[in-house]
């Protein structure tokens, strides 16, 4: 099909599948309402189709275009049939127009900024090959292997026999980081199949579509609940963070992980705050996808859910369904974990090391390095703009005013995420290398997660100041 047409066609199909799956929640709504869910639909389809394919991969099935067509058709059919049987209320709110001219001008400027940045991301994506070599060294080749030979242990299982010496350095002939799940590899291979050849610019084109879907989905889910003069500027702050944009052209899986994790936790909070079954259903899909993107996805999800659970302890009756939904999301990765276990593909992160005081005592240099390097990336305004200071400042102001611990949840995502990755790096035999090579990416999911809550924090603060407030969201 060619580069642009191929990537556009794949994403249009994924969005169509997403719409079918959303049918129980959108049936009977207006065309405008359907259009407003385009971002959610794209991320649903892009999440679900490769997720189901990755569940099938351990059976030995070749994950190419025929498998894609069947899975996409089945998912779409299931969604359409489900829409006839039961109904979920998406509860699409309408935004209250800005009250004053200044507020309206702020909304207009922010909306322009979002469209402009996403437009440049899209154009730039199709003009750039990923700058990170992981993309062509193992993420995409794994997808090609799943398509051409299936999930072959020869390529995934570590085998000391399969080493080659170049100069003074050994290189392995199996895939490095074989423990990572298959979702991103499968999606990238589908892009190449639709393009018709291996064109690395399709990777960044796909990332641009995911970024657009992310902003569209976040805006839709918060629309009418957060006033526009807060929602759009806050999304612009998140979207325009230089490091977020830079990584969106790196080709690695950290940006998709950050996107799906952030939306999963946002939906978890939507369930707890509103008891929205639609939010809970979205949570399952987004959380399952986050787990299927990278190995650390499941750990980050559990950590962030634990923070949300503590912060929302007042709504503890709603926690059981939430954790049940989280268990369902984890269950979608069981086939992959079982295959890994059967084929000796262990995690690069060793829990035994992580819990061994003697091991950790012998590697305190990594602790110091981790604290410093990860801390530098986490607090860098040059990299992440105002996301971190705003999340902490707004949370503290809210805490002082209302004395409710829930205000600190976004700051806790950052703080505990930081501690978590320091601990992982400390316990990692290759922590020194990975801290230098990858620490800037470790902090991406917690920062994006904190960033998606900036509009919520801002809205609650403003609502507290102005009562229900003019120009406030519809209730």
């Amino acid at each position, binding site marked *: 099909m060619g580069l642009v047409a191929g990537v556009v066609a794949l994403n249009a199909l994924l969005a169509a599948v997403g719409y079918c799956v959303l049918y129980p929640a959108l049936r009977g709504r207006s065309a405008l309402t359907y259009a407003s869910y385009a971002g959610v639909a794209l991320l649903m389809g892009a999440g679900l189709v490769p997720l189901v394919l990755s569940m099938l991969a351990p059976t030995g099935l070749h994950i190419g275009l025929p498998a894609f067509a069947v899975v996409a058709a089945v998912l779409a059919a299931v969604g359409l049939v489900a829409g006839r049987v039961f109904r979920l209320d998406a509860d699409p709110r309408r935004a209250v127009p800005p009250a004053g001219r200044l507020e309206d001008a702020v909304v207009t400027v922010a909306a322009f900024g979002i469209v402009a940045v996403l437009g440049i991301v899209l154009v730039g994506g199709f003009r750039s090959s990923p700058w990170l070599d992981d993309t062509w060294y193992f993420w995409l080749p794994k997808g090609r*292997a799943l398509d051409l030979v299936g999930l072959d242990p020869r390529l995934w299982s570590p085998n000391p026999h*399969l080493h080659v010496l170049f100069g003074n350095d050994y290189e392995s002939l199996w895939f490095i980081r074989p423990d990572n799940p298959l979702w991103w590899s499968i999606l990238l291979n589908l892009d190449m199949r639709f393009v018709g050849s291996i064109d690395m610019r399709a990777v960044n084109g796909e990332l641009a579509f995911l970024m657009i879907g992310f902003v569209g989905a976040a805006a839709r889910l918060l629309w009418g609940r957060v006033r526009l003069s807060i929602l759009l500027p806050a999304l612009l702050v998140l979207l325009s963070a230089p490091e977020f944009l830079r990584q969106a052209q790196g080709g690695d899986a950290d940006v998709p992980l950050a996107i799906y994790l952030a939306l999963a936790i946002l939906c978890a909070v939507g369930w707890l705050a509103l008891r929205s079954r639609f939010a809970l259903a979205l949570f399952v899909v987004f959380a399952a996808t986050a787990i299927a993107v990278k190995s650390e996805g499941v750990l980050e999800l559990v950590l962030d859910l634990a923070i949300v659970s503590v912060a929302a302890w007042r709504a503890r009756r709603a926690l059981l369904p939430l954790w049940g939904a989280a268990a369902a999301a984890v269950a979608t990765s069981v086939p992959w974990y079982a295959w890994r276990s059967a084929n000796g593909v262990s995690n690069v992160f060793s829990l035994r090391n992580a819990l061994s005081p003697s091991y950790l005592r012998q590697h305190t240099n990594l602790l110091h390095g981790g604290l410093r390097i990860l801390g530098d990336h986490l607090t860098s305004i040059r990299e992440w703009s105002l996301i971190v200071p705003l999340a902490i400042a707004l949370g503290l102001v809210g805490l002082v005013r209302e004395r409710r611990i829930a205000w600190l949840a976004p700051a806790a995502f950052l703080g505990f995420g930081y501690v978590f990755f320091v601990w992982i790096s400390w316990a990692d035999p290759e922590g020194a290398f990975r801290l230098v090579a990858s620490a800037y990416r470790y902090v991406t999911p917690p920062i994006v997660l904190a960033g998606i809550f900036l509009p919520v924090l801002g809205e609650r603060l403003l609502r507290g100041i102005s009562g229900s407030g003019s120009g406030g969201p519809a209730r």
Partner: protein
Amino acid sequence: MFGPLPLRVRLGLVALLALLTVAVAFAPGRLSGPIRRLANYRADTRDPIYNAPIDGRAIRRAGAILPDSRGVTYYIHTRPVPQLGHDLIGAGLLFFLPAVPVPSPREAQWVLSYDAPTLLPKGVRAEKTYRVGERIYLIRVRQG
């Protein structure tokens, strides 16, 4: 969604913002840096951005010649430069599948000879040689 801002004022604001964006995009020096980087003014090719100087066309040619069968094996023969070896392994995994790499020429049916000091490693003999680039060959071999 639209507030009290008159349509003309709103359009004027958008036009001003668009003008500003275009001006920044074409401004000389550091001002245009963020947009230049993001839009990637000098577009990349479809090939991976290799760390070592790899001939992407030669790799694609070799990939097109290798038989499309999972039973096919190949060996990478090159200079003893770690980064070059690393990138060639990655390029092979990307472009040569379903053929799989092997660690020894004795296990290989094909050899990718990439800017190597000798055409072939010891222990194998050429059956058919394809020149795919400058000092780059794909060679069907038999054990010597």
